[in-house]
């Protein structure tokens, strides 16, 4: 369920207090909200079995190029689901469809029981979905801390006049969002650079700041488009550890696009493989590893693939 924003006022004093947060607010918060959220129809009965995210018959083309063809996908709550495939297979397009950046020509997206022809981007954060981008999409003119705090912009309810005069809700909101952002920075070991402008940071750190901005909203669904691209091997394993820790700590469901097969096999619960816009496999890492179609389309040529993309990915594997 989306974090109900009306609950914010009620929780201001107790749950959102920094000291509670330090003891692990996110899980407590989530447990408290679950019953509230599933009060909506369809949720409660099937909640255990129904997938958090499911795509049905998604088709998308650009002019003559078929980016996605008849994709079905179903992601269970709490899982880390990888999406792999050669360049141009349609992976980013799929995430853009899930986050409403693209409207699919056919099919629909079901998020937590609600069905959309196009996911409403403007309400995405309220629906509990956060994402990162293949090419960095940070706010260069803001500090690391402000970038991360901006991930909480969706729940700000004070207006500009209150903020300018420092009255009403605005002070509490400001304090809350900064303290939550600080917590996430600590979690991702970014505290030392909190006041730097993000534009001045090396690429790998910017990627991590973008993860922090997505995580600070404590999303139920986290979409990561190549979070480890361009990183060294050690940065990659650090990032993989962060993704896993985020899932464990925030009970977040993760959809992850990644080219590094080693990382993917290690990190994910299930893997979907795309090729020319079609899903050619969807199974556990072991099954995917031994799937002949996948080997032919992607893994077999993985050395080529790494070869072609190594310039953008940097040395690492």
């Amino acid at each position: 369920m989306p974090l109900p924003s009306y609950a914010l006022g009620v929780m201001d004093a107790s749950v959102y207090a920094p000291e509670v947060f330090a003891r692990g607010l996110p899980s407590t918060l989530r447990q408290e909200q679950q019953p509230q959220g599933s009060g909506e129809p369809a949720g409660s009965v099937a909640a255990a079995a129904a997938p958090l995210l499911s795509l049905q018959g998604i088709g998308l083309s650009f002019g003559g190029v078929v980016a996605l063809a008849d994709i079905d996908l179903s992601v269970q709550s709490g899982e880390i689901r990888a999406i792999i495939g050669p360049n141009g297979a349609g992976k980013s397009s799929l995430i853009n469809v899930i986050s409403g950046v693209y409207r699919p020509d056919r099919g629909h997206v079901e998020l937590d029981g609600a069905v959309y022809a196009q996911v409403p981007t403007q309400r995405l954060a309220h629906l509990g979905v956060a994402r990162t981008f293949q090419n960095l999409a940070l706010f260069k003119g803001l500090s690391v801390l402000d970038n991360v705090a901006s991930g909480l912009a969706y729940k700000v309810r004070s207006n500009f006049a209150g903020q300018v005069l420092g009255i009403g809700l605005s002070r509490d909101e400001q304090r809350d969002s900064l303290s939550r952002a600080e917590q996430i920075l600590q979690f991702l070991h970014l505290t030392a650079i909190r006041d730097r402008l993000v534009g001045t940071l090396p690429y790998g750190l910017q990627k991590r700041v973008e993860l922090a901005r997505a995580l600070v909203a404590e999303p139920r669904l986290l979409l990561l488009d190549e979070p480890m691209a361009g990183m060294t091997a050690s940065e990659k394993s650090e990032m993989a550890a962060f993704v896993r820790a985020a899932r464990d700590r925030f009970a977040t469901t993760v959809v992850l696009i990644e080219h590094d097969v080693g990382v993917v096999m290690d990190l994910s619960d299930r893997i979907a493989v795309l090729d020319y816009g079609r899903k050619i496999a969807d199974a556990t890492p072991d099954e995917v590893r031994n799937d002949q179609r996948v080997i032919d389309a992607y893994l077999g040529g993985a050395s080529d693939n790494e070869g072609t993309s190594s310039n953008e990915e940097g040395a690492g594997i």
Partner: protein
Amino acid sequence: MTAISSDFSSVPVLPKWIVPVLLLAFAYGVVPLIGSSYLFEAILLPFLALSLAGVGLNILTGYAGQVSLGSAAFMAAGAFAAYNFNLRVEGLPLIGSIFLAGIVAAAIGIVFGLPSLRLKGFYLAVSTLAAQFFVQWALTKFSWFSNNSASGVIDAPRLSISGYALDGAIGRYLFALTIVTVLTFLAYRLVTSQTGRNFIAIRDNETAARIIGIPVLKTKLLAFAISSFIIGVAGVIWAFAYLRTVEPDGFDLDRSFQILFIIIIGGLASIRGAFFGAALIVVFPLGLSRLGGFLLGDLFDSGVLDMSQRIVLGALIILFLILEPDGLVALWDRIRRRLLFAWQST
């Protein structure tokens, strides 16, 4: 400031409020005692009005990233609205007229900001020209706005606050200074608030801003409204305190460009930058005419002055765009850091 000031790690940092407070103490306590009426009339009053207009445009363009060529239209709207409120609403105090004039300018700003929901960059800039031409046309066409005066030029009302007349040069200076100080302080609070961060987010990456739940359309229109409010009040200062006449001609496209140049030269996304830029724009032609008169004598008439002013200013803007895109503020910060560093290491 947010976008520019990077790290001051190596030098001792004064508390942020010290410099502004010292400057204000000087502006209120010392300048009125020592300033000549030339200083007030020819330098400080236009400087204050243009600085405030620069602060307003910087909120829209520097922070929220929406280019506008309509600033002078909002100044005109403010000036004429204040004139008419003052004229037609019995018993409304001057400050009330000025505030309502800001609201009128803000409303017009929202209307002409609507294209920003679909247009960006160059196309948006061109569409804001519509505001420029429309407002000027309306003010000339409908003589009601200038109380049916034959020439379209009208005397501004005399400035007074609760019966206390502020007609002299010093009075008008203090009046302008106070309004500029208050609005600049509020603008500073705004750009460092959550709303200010939303402005920057939309400027830097609109898609990401939308994804994290910033209400993009609402925030853009808010930027237009607030910016136009401030620019509208700047227009009132321009007309009431500086020129002491209200006329559409002074608010033409040249003026819009002048304000844009102020924030480019001073520094985009910097409140201080507007003051730096306005100082340069106001002082520079005066200096140039002195220098030209000194070097060329009678040859340097007003036509030559006007031309050389445009040429030098144009060259200056190009130089800034190439060499110091972050403006005078960045230059100043670098010099200051270097001086402090040199002073420290001795």
